[in-house]
């Protein structure tokens, strides 16, 4: 098969991505950190570090710890705030021929709305990704994402002010990802991102303190991939909006698992730290796989999993 004939482009919420490979929020800075490693225009989409209305200092250090095939992070959503992002980071990002997606969150209901509005107005931001995995200060640190009522209220209000495509990023710390996915779709999400990190903890046994100054943190990396693939499969079977899959993708073979399970696009997170060229190599790997398998269009891979019928579940 002629490589030029390969079609890797996918559509997410009305946006055309040249390939299904995105960066995962918080693992690619504001893009500039990796711009010297490769041409960012090669990316399907670039998702920036989670933004809030005002700058945030984040948590004390140590903020990360390595675990078996994974890492825990408790960055605490440190970010420069929407205003500085628009003024200082967005101009460079606009110069790349790729889709720019702004991940955002708020500590309060109002902050969510105000941040969404600001990003919706910002030229060069093509879509918004709402992070509802973070705790809700007003209601005693309950995660917005784990309370259906709260989620419905929040999503409704954000949807009302956002004209750009709205992606909702779901937390895996839930008993039923299908329910969360359906709810987000009902509330007007144009696409879903999953998964965010699983909450975890690691302990220094000599000093008997947590390895993270925040006690707990979010687990990412290859360790969580099986959970992520399962959730992407479950979610994409119950919604009609596209699902963006992520969680432990290190190479094109991992990416293919997600695409086959039903993800329309995938995002690369922790792998960027291990190998700054991960995204590019994954794109190349997808092309190689398609050539080898004689697949001309990536659509023929997406959701192509043939499951067994005899499945029980324990």
């Amino acid at each position, binding site marked *: 098969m002629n490589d030029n004939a390969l079609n890797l482009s996918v559509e997410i919420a009305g946006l055309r991505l040249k390939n299904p490979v995105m960066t995962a929020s918080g693992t690619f800075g504001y893009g500039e950190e990796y711009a010297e490693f490769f041409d960012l225009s090669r990316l399907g989409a670039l998702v920036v570090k989670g933004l809030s209305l005002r700058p945030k200092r984040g948590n004390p250090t140590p903020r*990360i*710890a390595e675990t078996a095939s994974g890492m825990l992070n408790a960055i605490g959503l440190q970010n420069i705030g929407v205003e500085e992002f628009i003024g200082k980071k967005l101009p460079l990002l606009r110069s790349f021929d790729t889709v720019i997606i702004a991940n955002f969150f708020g500590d309060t209901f109002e902050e969510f709305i105000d941040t969404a509005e600001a990003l919706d107005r910002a030229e060069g931001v093509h879509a918004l990704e709402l992070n509802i995995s973070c705790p809700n200060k007003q209601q005693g640190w309950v995660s917005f994402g784990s309370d259906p009522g709260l989620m419905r209220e929040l999503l409704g209000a954000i949807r009302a002010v956002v004209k750009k495509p709205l992606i909702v990023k779901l937390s895996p710390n839930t008993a039923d990802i299908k329910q969360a996915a359906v709810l987000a779709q009902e509330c007007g999400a144009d696409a879903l991102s999953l998964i965010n990190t699983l909450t975890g903890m690691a302990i220094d046994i000599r000093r008997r303190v947590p390895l993270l100054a925040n006690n707990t943190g979010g687990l990412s990396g290859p360790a969580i991939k099986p959970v992520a693939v399962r959730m992407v499969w479950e979610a994409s079977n119950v919604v009609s909006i596209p699902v963006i899959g992520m969680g432990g993708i290190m190479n094109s073979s991992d990416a293919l698992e997600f695409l086959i399970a039903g993800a329309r696009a995938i995002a690369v997170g922790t792998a960027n730290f291990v190998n*700054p060229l991960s995204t590019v190599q994954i794109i190349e790997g997808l092309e190689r796989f398609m050539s080898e398998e004689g697949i001309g269009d990536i659509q023929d891979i997406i959701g192509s999993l043939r499951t067994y019928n005899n499945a029980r579940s324990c």
Partner: protein
Amino acid sequence: MHRLFKARIVQTTVLSGSYRLLTLSSEEYIRHCEAGQFFMLQTGSEFLLKRPFSIFSHRGGLLYFLYCIRGKGTKRLSELREGDFIEVLGPLGKAYPKPAGDFIALAGGSGIASIYCLLEDNKGKGHLFYGAKEKGDIVLADSLEKVSKVLTIATEDGSLGVKGNALEALCSKYQGDPPMPIYACGPKQMLMAVSRWALDKGLPCYISLEEHMACGVGACLSCVVETREGLKGICKDGPIFSAGEIIGA
């Protein structure tokens, strides 16, 4: 533009109980390096994240790292053999500002790694104060003798050189103001103390900071430090900082 490459282990040398010297070569790529910069080194295929290590030397197309076995990763690194390949990312971070003339170098423990590089790149100009717990933890004294102008060794138990820590040795030597900038690498406590001492005396002072790192390039925000201009990334804005910048110093 690449800075990620596979390097071959050319030599592994045991310097003492827990100190090792690692020599790497790469046909692919070894870029211009400067003292104070560091690399992220893969320590074993079972570990996800690379570990940061200062450049110890960069002569003859080779890269040298001096490290101390501390945890799982460094333990595993010490088990690798000549001929094995590891993935490395670098050089990363900001280097020590080039000293114009003579300078004071202060090293504690494995902090000697980046300080050695500075001394070697500025041969015969460094007045080195090098401290460790005991005699067995002082490594490469002969080589240090050669690259520094004056070498003062301090051990906490007095088993080699003067008794006490390196900073005490430095302070007792220069009760007046030494007309030289200070370069320091070692335990956080030592760095904070020497920073205050230098700031007091109005001397330029550069310190090399450490923090747990994931990306090494400023993207993950794991390695921040509080500076007078807000939070900075140790991997990208550092690891070398001017003492005056750091809050708490």
